[in-house]
């Protein structure tokens, strides 16, 4: 279970509030979608969860581990896929995967199984011996996804994961997310693709100007909005009011 309690983050000495007193509880075995317009605070929130941005206030707890107090322990059960796959492009794909596996302390047998399984699934097994700078954006994204799945994370957290993925990989990723949830793990991702959120997520939160303006299951969200049709309508209606 991931608990975000009263977290805030501001920039420029408090003049810009990126995230404002945010409260969220995400249960284990749940796929949670995080929506919002550009600059609403999605990436800032995600960065605070994974240890890249220290919250000004509040606490983030994952399965009883305070993410900022006991950061090493927390990091060993979190896997993060950023929106922009900037990785060591002078290394070969396989070298990068081995490096990440070493950092998580993944055993030889386990890494072999997982690297073969996921690289085959994402169709990058043939290029693992190539230098990463020769990869396309989508291939890099798939490599980061593979690396994030090596350590069997309790929390799988992704920032705009569908961008740059081909339809088949996109489908596979959704399957993986579902499977992780079935195993009792938590999946948290931000997206602009409302269709994906609508079909895939158990619960959804919409953030605007650093505040959660609506959250719940699709059904609950529909009750909030006047036009109770698609998530697109709900999203447009809610974010326009602000």
């Amino acid at each position, binding site marked *: 279970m991931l608990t975000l309690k009263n977290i805030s983050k501001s920039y420029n000495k408090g003049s810009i509030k990126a995230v404002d007193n945010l409260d969220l509880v995400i249960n284990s075995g749940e796929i949670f979608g995080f929506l919002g317009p550009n600059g609403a605070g999605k990436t800032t929130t995600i960065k605070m969860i994974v240890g890249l941005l220290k919250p000004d206030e509040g606490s983030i707890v994952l399965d009883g581990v305070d993410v900022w107090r006991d950061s090493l322990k927390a990091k060993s059960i979190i896997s*993060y896929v950023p929106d922009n796959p*900037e*990785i*060591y492009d002078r290394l070969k794909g396989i070298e990068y995967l*081995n*490096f990440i596996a070493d950092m998580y302390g993944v055993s030889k047998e386990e890494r072999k199984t997982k*690297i073969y399984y996921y690289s085959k699934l994402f169709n990058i097994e043939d290029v693992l*011996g190539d230098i990463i700078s020769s990869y396309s954006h989508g291939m890099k994204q798939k490599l980061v996804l593979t690396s994030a799945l090596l350590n069997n994370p309790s929390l799988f957290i992704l920032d705009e994961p569908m961008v740059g993925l081909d339809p088949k990989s996109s489908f596979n990723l959704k399957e993986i997310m579902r499977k992780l949830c079935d195993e009792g793990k938590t999946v948290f991702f931000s997206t602009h693709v409302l269709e994906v959120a609508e079909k895939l997520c158990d619960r959804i939160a919409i953030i605007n100007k650093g505040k959660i303006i609506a959250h719940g299951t699709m059904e609950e969200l529909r009750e909030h909005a006047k036009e109770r049709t698609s998530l697109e309508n709900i999203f447009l209606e809610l974010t326009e009011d602000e």
Partner: protein
Amino acid sequence: MNKLISLIRTDLNITFGLSSIIHGFKAKKKIWQLLIIPLALLSLIPSYVLLIRGLWSFYDAFSQIGQQSYFLLMGFLASQLMVFFFGLMYVMSKYYFSNDLNHLVPLPIKPSQILTSKFVTIMVSEYLTSMPIFLPFAIIFGLKTNAGLLYWLYAVLGAIFLPVIPLVISSLAIMILMKYTNIKGKRDQLRIIAAGGFMIFAIWFQLKIQQISQKAILEGENFMFNLARDANLLVRSLGVAFPPSMWGALSLANYDSFLGLTNILLYSVVSIISFVLMIIASEKLFFDGLIGNIEVSASKHRNINKNLDKTMVATRPYLAIARKEVKMLFKTPIYLMNSVGGVIIVPIILAMSLVTGEASMEPISQFLYGNTDLVVIIGVGMIGILGMLNSVGVTTFSREGSNFWIMRTLPIKAEDQILGRLLASLFIQVIGALVLIVSIFFVIKLNILSIILILLLGLLASIPMTLLGMIIDIIRPMLTWTNPQQAMKQNFNVLIGMGLGTIYVGTLFFLIKFMFDKVDMFIIYLILMGILIISSILFFKVLMSLIEKRFRELE
């Protein structure tokens, strides 16, 4: 023209991070970091004052034999040669490896416009490095000779045009190199070998010319007579090594005569013409080396699972970090040239400058032979200094750049971070230490014990130096670079590291000098070892808490 001005303005802004400095001031976040810069400069002042004092008496020496102009030639030569050698690296990375090229090439601008903007930025960088060398020479000469207004005017012109010709030569050399090595597959390796070979050749060539001209004038029958008759004799004879420096020196030394006027005209006009010619040539040369440089070839053999199997071995985190660091250093040409290149070239230059002065070698060699302990101490000190000069520790976090998120989101202990990065630096240091020992061998034949002592103590001295560098780098990592060159060569942390490193090594050196005749050498080595170990432990502890703190705080 508007395009060009806009290009230059943007490139200067990106290179020197002007917007981000202003942003930092506005956000009131980085002010304390900006204060470190003047502090670092202050730490360099003592050695700079020492240098200027030396130059002051140096002038007198030449003045006594009536060859003051040679003093100026040395100023021009030293700074222009430095511009040339730094220029080779700046040009390589700025013209061919900076990230903005991917955006610039598709824009409707001429290759020459891109090149001009980059040339101007490098010029500015070169002023920053060459003026601290050139200005003392010019100012001391002016003050000592009570020179008139025209001298100072010529000096300003001399300073303004100083980097142009050396930079034009390095630009042309690199453009030709890149054009003809643009071969798929082994591009990087080919270029590194060619660049290394070229630099060694250039150093050798300079030294050889100086040596030949030195001999020619010394062996002339009427040397003393000629020396007394012609105040510019030395400049004319030795200036052939690099004529622009000769023109500069002659113009300043003879500012009050026609000779000065013709030389300053020659100096300025040739600078301008060479720049224009280089720009014209760039239309033909630049894109040929650049296009295709960006593309990376993938392997053709598709079924490589067998090889993959072998590579999938679990490694301890610090070893994995060390391996990754070394790989990145070796696979990024700019890092390789700065780190490995530095530790190889510096000892070679030193050895060459000693070996080429054959006549004067004998007494030095004999003196050192009777003082092997002195050789060991100097060797250890030099390896220690290389430990900072290799820039591996002092840019280790900066080099992560936009990839730094990986390190910060992975569960890595601070001690693994330190140990891994330290091992990478030591790996480079071993290469430097071996080259140094071979270089020393050309000057004096060392016994096995001395070699072992130099290696052991030298590597031990590299540890506190690397850790000190890492402390500086984690306090103010430079992560927002667009060109790997910025992470290593244009990183101010390197300068801060040099300042603090010089103080550290200098203190140890004076301590040893103090004990040298009073205490048994064995005890001195033990004390040295003790100090190195204790300071390493101390730096390690400081670094541990700093890493934990900074990994949380950075944004």
